[in-house]
């Protein structure tokens, strides 16, 4: 009657999609297993807390030190300086200090705990498709040479590099962080002070954090100086007054310059729509050739600032709290085959500016 060629296909051979409501007939595991969430099998070097809601880099860096310094300095300020200044100046001082302190802590936690814009690794099908498009020799006995793809962005030729760990061509401005072993979109730098990468999704939090921290340290520094000045006038002399709050003064004095410097640097980056990574590498400075300008800049400071800080918040591309399909194996095989490449030194922008190093050195000497 008809020439249809229908073959009975064995349902056990089919991959079961995640949202299929019918039960899989060949269950190797008879007992019901609690479904695992995707963060539990995440291939990058990240740590997850609160069942996947919070994420950080695996090595938290000096994040506890950052929190500790802020807490100690602010506590000393509230305990020693505020009572004196409220009595002699105005009641607004602890209020302003309190608002700044809360602001700083909230933005710090948001920078540290948010997904910076991690790109999930390519699925095996995708990776195979990309390999097929570039591989013409068919030789699989050695690692192929680094692959690049050229694209035209705003009339400028940009080279996209192939990431061997994530098995995909990195989108423009994306870099692979070797500390976190993830490709991060609009990668700025990996900040040990916040214990996370700074990328597309958390750059605005990071910028707000350092700007508000500059205000906080400058404010505390100003208050402490005023307090000392008023006490010194009181009669006992400057030296005696200094002995009463040395720790606070020292921390603030050294922090103010480096944090202010860092804020200034990042304000420049925001205004020119650059990342720390690009600035350090000199991608658009014209060193490599003439006529090379930043293709992402809108050539207008206000529009650049808006597009970096006020653009709609992009979603997290790694579905941390989604459930794994019951029969899908974990994507941890990548870690075995491709160890993280340690020669990506130009991507390991661990400190975005040398000011970070100055701060570490001076604080270490203080102790």
């Amino acid at each position, binding site marked *: 009657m008809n020439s249809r060629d229908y073959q009975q296909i064995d349902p056990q051979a089919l991959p079961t999609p995640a949202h299929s409501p019918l039960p899989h007939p060949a269950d190797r595991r008879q007992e019901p297993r609690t479904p695992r969430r995707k963060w539990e099998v995440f291939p990058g070097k990240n740590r997850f807390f609160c069942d996947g809601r919070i994420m950080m880099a695996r090595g938290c860096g000096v994040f506890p030190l950052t929190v500790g310094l802020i807490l100690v300095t602010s506590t000393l300020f509230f305990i020693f300086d505020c009572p004196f200044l409220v009595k002699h100046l105005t009641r607004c001082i602890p209020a302003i200090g309190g608002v700044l302190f809360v602001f700083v802590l909230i933005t710090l936690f948001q920078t540290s705990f948010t997904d910076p814009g991690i790109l999930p690794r390519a699925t095996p099908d995708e990776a195979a498709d990309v390999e097929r498009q570039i591989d013409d020799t068919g030789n699989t006995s050695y690692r192929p040479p680094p692959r690049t793809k050229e694209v035209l962005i705003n009339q400028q030729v940009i080279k996209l590099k192939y990431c061997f760990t994530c098995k995909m061509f990195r*989108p423009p401005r994306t870099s692979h962080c070797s500390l976190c072993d993830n490709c991060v979109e609009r990668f700025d730098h990996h900040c040990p002070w916040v214990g996370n990468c700074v990328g597309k999704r958390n750059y605005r939090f990071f910028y707000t954090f350092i700007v508000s921290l500059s205000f906080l340290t400058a404010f505390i520094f100003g208050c402490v100086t005023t307090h000392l000045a008023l006490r010194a006038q009181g009669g006992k002399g400057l030296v005696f007054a200094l002995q009463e709050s040395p720790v606070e003064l020292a921390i603030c004095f050294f922090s103010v310059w480096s944090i202010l410097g860092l804020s200034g640097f990042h304000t420049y980056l925001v205004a020119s729509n650059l990342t720390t990574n690009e600035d350090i590498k000199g991608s658009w400075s014209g060193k490599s050739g003439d006529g090379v300008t930043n293709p992402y800049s809108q050539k207008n400071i206000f529009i650049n600032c808006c597009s970096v800080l*006020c653009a709609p918040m992009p979603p997290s591309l790694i579905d941390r709290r989604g459930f794994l399909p019951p029969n899908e194996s974990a994507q941890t095989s990548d870690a075995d085959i491709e160890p993280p490449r340690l020669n990506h030194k130009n991507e390991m922008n661990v400190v975005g500016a040398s000011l970070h190093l100055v701060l570490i050195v001076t604080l270490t000497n203080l102790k």
Partner: protein
Amino acid sequence: MAETHSLQDMRQQVAVAAKVFIQRDYTNGTMCQFQTKFPSDLETKIDKQQFEETIRTLNNLYAEAEKLSSQSFIEGCLACLTAYTVFLCMETHYEKVLKKIAKYIQEQNEKVYAPRGLLLTDPIERGLRVIEITIYEDRSFSR
């Protein structure tokens, strides 16, 4: 003898023949746009106009999600003033558009792609890198 199969039936009865990946188009920068070039593997399955229409609509939706409008500027400023805590309570503009996109893709799958033995995967499930189109073997279809 049904001429069209529902998505569920298809997944259980037919095997995956091939997958086509529509890559991102970076000519206008890092905005999420996909290439509208018609892949050769789909030539026998769907006509070019229909395919380009789908991709173009998706591109427009993503452009709408990422657009820098006065509304997004005001939202950004307000969010900054509240130390971005509003992001924890409210659904962002981008997420609202992503829901629209998911609905559009489901609608396209039901009306256009499933009857032809194809399936569009929402790009958000692939990290906004590719649009994955799965081609199913159409031995059970009478053509």
